[in-house]
């Protein structure tokens, strides 16, 4: 019965009463751009009520559930003053606020009940006691006697107040006082220091950066015992105003380099940034290249090592990776382990990485070029084998290789996206099962599977993630060039690729230094020298201190 009733209703009525939500329609009426008047360098008012009203409005406290505004009366020398504190719940240490802000100010105790003169100094001359007494001032009295906190500042700018409150500070406003007390009472849950996940080493430190900026700076301090380590704070973003720490060693890092880093960070017109990945793209020299121009690392010891070379480290609050600048191509092919092991082993690894770099970038393209134009390079027996294995494959070599390359990239991407326990399964299914099935179905030749597998494996030996990405993309370019022009195409591409690299700079340092331009003085180049022979810092960085160690570092031998 109900069904028929509904049917009759549907037939007789239009269906335009259905709920529909379309974002963006009538935007100007329902979603007008808010006036920004509240955020224009407003100073703290004398009147507490006005301040209270302003704070309510600025922090949207009526709808913001975690913004706490606590009004109370302060007892000072028997008199009472109206006041309020402002903080964000979950970002402050409430015990600290209760015990060391509210208690001393509200409850009666010796300090706030004391009505005598405030003695600055006293001396006895000719049996006469001479005292210097300070004229009573409520602000000084509160600051000196009633706020037992180690970090209290006077702030009269609401922009600064807002920034500090969202960072976890507590603000104290008092009636008739035209500034607020900025009390550091931060405490929030954070991830504890853990081992590096993506840059493991055997013989080095096992500490990695975390998301909290202050924890990261403290780790740098702990690992680098030098009073010349400067950690400057800047904020990036107009809406977000996230903290960024610029770290460098004052007597080593080039002053122009430090100034340039700060200049770029201070001149970012962005609302917000989410990670150092975004930041690195915004401060790089050349926008047209996909080559990384700043190093990123999660290792504390690695950062310390670069600081000691004269580079600048930028820590972004909320990201467990730090940026290191300037960086050259050789830095992206170096591992933190290189300096920990004997230089012979380190150099062997470095050679392997260079070979891997070339294979990752060029092998598929070279294969296409050789099979298409330069068969004579292949030994005759192998050539027969390749020709035989390709005889049943219906595709041209370019289609075959692109098919496999794209499949490999899809498997790799899928392996990253699926939950960790399934990742290896995707890899096995993708690589082994699909690969074998593709060969048996004569879609691709077995030799091609070997080429793709070698290329894939070598790409994992590139230490830097961003460089790995870059190589993955450019591999396709070389495949096309190899197909179009054989070795001529590949050489043409490689020449332009190298030329582009030669033209790049990272914060003023040539990207291919010390090989292009050739800097002969005080450089070890790509390879690691024995520990006792690493006498100089990289001269491409033009550090203030050139020498790292004396001419005879092992003085005990002399």
């Amino acid at each position: 019965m109900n069904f028929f009733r509904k049917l009759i209703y549907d037939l007789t009525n239009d269906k335009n009463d259905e709920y529909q939500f379309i974002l963006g329609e009538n935007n100007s009426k329902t979603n007008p751009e808010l006036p920004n008047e509240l955020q224009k360098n407003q100073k703290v008012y004398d009147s507490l009520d006005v301040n209270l009203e302003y704070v309510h409005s600025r922090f949207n406290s009526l709808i913001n559930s975690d913004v706490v505004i606590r009004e109370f009366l302060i007892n000072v020398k028997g008199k009472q003053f109206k006041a309020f504190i402002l903080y964000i719940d979950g970002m402050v240490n409430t015990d600290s606020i209760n015990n060391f802000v509210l208690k001393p100010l509200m409850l009666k105790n010796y300090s706030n009940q004391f009505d005598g003169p405030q003695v600055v100094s006293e001396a006895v001359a000719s049996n006469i006691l001479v005292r210097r007494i300070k004229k009573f001032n409520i602000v000084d009295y509160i600051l000196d006697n009633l706020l037992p906190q180690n970090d209290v500042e006077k702030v009269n700018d609401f922009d600064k107040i807002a920034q500090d409150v969202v960072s976890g500070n507590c603000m104290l406003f008092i009636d008739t006082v035209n500034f607020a007390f900025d009390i550091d009472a931060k405490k929030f849950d954070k991830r504890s220091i853990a081992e590096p996940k993506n840059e493991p080493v055997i013989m080095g430190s096992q500490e990695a950066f975390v998301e909290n900026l202050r924890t990261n700076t403290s780790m740098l301090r702990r690992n680098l015992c030098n009073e010349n380590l400067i950690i400057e704070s800047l904020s990036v973003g107009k809406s977000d105003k996230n903290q960024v720490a610029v770290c460098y060693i004052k007597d080593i890092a080039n002053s122009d380099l430090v100034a340039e880093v700060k200049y770029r960070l201070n001149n970012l017109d962005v609302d917000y940034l989410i990670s150092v990945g975004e930041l690195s793209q915004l401060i790089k020299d050349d926008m047209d290249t996909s080559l990384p121009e700043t190093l990123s690392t999660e290792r504390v010891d690695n950062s310390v090592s670069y600081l000691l070379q004269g580079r600048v480290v930028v820590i972004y609050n909320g990201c467990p990776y730090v940026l290191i600048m300037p960086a050259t191509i050789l830095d992206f092919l170096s591992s933190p382990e290189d300096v920990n092991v004997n230089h012979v082993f380190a150099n062997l690894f470095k050679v392997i990485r260079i070979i891997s770099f070339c294979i990752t970038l060029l092998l598929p393209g070279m294969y296409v070029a050789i099979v298409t134009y330069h068969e004579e390079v292949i030994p005759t027996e192998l050539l027969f084998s390749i020709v035989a294995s390709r005889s049943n494959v219906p595709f041209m070599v370019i289609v075959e290789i692109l098919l496999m390359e794209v499949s490999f990239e899809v498997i790799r991407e899928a392996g990253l996206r699926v939950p960790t326990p399934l990742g290896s399964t995707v890899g096995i299914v993708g690589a082994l099962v699909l690969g074998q099935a593709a060969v048996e179905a004569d879609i691709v030749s077995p030799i091609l599977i070997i080429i793709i597998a070698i290329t894939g494996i070598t790409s994992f030996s590139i230490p830097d993630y961003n460089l790995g990405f870059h190589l993955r993309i450019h591999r396709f370019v070389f495949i096309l060039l190899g197909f179009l022009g054989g070795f001529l195409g590949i050489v043409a591409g490689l020449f332009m690729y190298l030329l582009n690299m030669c033209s790049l700079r990272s914060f003023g340092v040539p990207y291919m230094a010390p090989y292009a331009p050739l800097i002969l003085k005080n450089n070890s180049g790509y390879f690691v020298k024995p520990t006792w022979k690493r006498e100089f810092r990289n001269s491409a960085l033009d550090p203030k201190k050139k020498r790292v160690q004396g001419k005879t570092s092992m003085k005990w031998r002399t």
Partner: protein
Amino acid sequence: MEEEKLNFIEASFLVLTILISHIIMDLPNMIIKSQNSSAVLNVIYITILVLIYFFIINKLFEPFDSKNILSISEFVGGKTLKVILGIIYSLYLICISAVILRGFCETLKIIYFPKAGLWIILGIFLVLAMLANKFGERNIIKINTILMPVILLSVFVIFIALLRNFEISRVFPLLGNGVKSTFVDGALNMCSFSGFIILFFVRPNLKNVKDYKKVGIVSILLSASYLVLSVASSLLLFPFLTANAEVLSVYLSACTIRFGKFMPRTDALFMFIWIFTFISYLSIIVSYIVKFSKESISPKSPSIATYISAIAIFIVALLPQNSTQVHFFQNVVYKYLSITIVFILSFVILLIGYIKKKKLNKTREIQ
């Protein structure tokens, strides 16, 4: 700004690129053809001549500090002479590079791209040279510095790999066609060092002008070694080489290399390196032509000079109708043009400039 200047290795490699590209072209073939068994001796002889010539040039350059030949020509004959010389040098580089490029592209066409039009292969090289010049001369020199050790190594590898195939008796009789042929007529083979022209222009680009002597000696000796090894490889390997062989003699040498059963043919790998050399060479030549035009006629946009010079090389490279004409250009025109412009004209200008400068200094001293 300091980084824009070249240190002595970069400058030496710059000169070497030009010298070696001319050698790869087909100079060993030309020298063997004219000298027969005394080809190696002749190369050593012309190397000594070129070194002596360089020492004289170095002496003549001394009063001019860091000036190049164009600036000196302005000192000698005013702006007009500078413009004329700028045009002569530009035309010379256009002609020589076009001939060299044509020879190399013909080889590439025969070996790898028989179906492709020659103009396509030529075009690829020239487009690359134009694009490279967009990155600036300094970056071309940087990449050249990286590539040069590999290029130098390639000829040593060829020589060493072919050692067991060499027939030492082919160097006999030592004097080949006779003393006159080896040491008098053979002196004209100095044209093998026509890349020497860069030494007349590199002085202002040096970080330290005192390195000029070092640059000259190193580049001449290295290119001489390259030439000796190339000539020796061809001479000791083949009973004869015909001037009309359609592919490069160094390529023919590379073709005979066998590294066991696994690498029966390695010539493609050497070709890989030589393509690099030629792109680098052409980029440098175009950048120098742009430089000459900048200094002598000051064009409004250097890019236009780049395009014009590349197109000019392209047109001149297409002028020869067949490989016989290409060989004629390589063996005759190249030889006499190089001797006239690089070794005579430049020397005369420099000598006049030197005398004028000395006279001027004397007059000043008297006053």
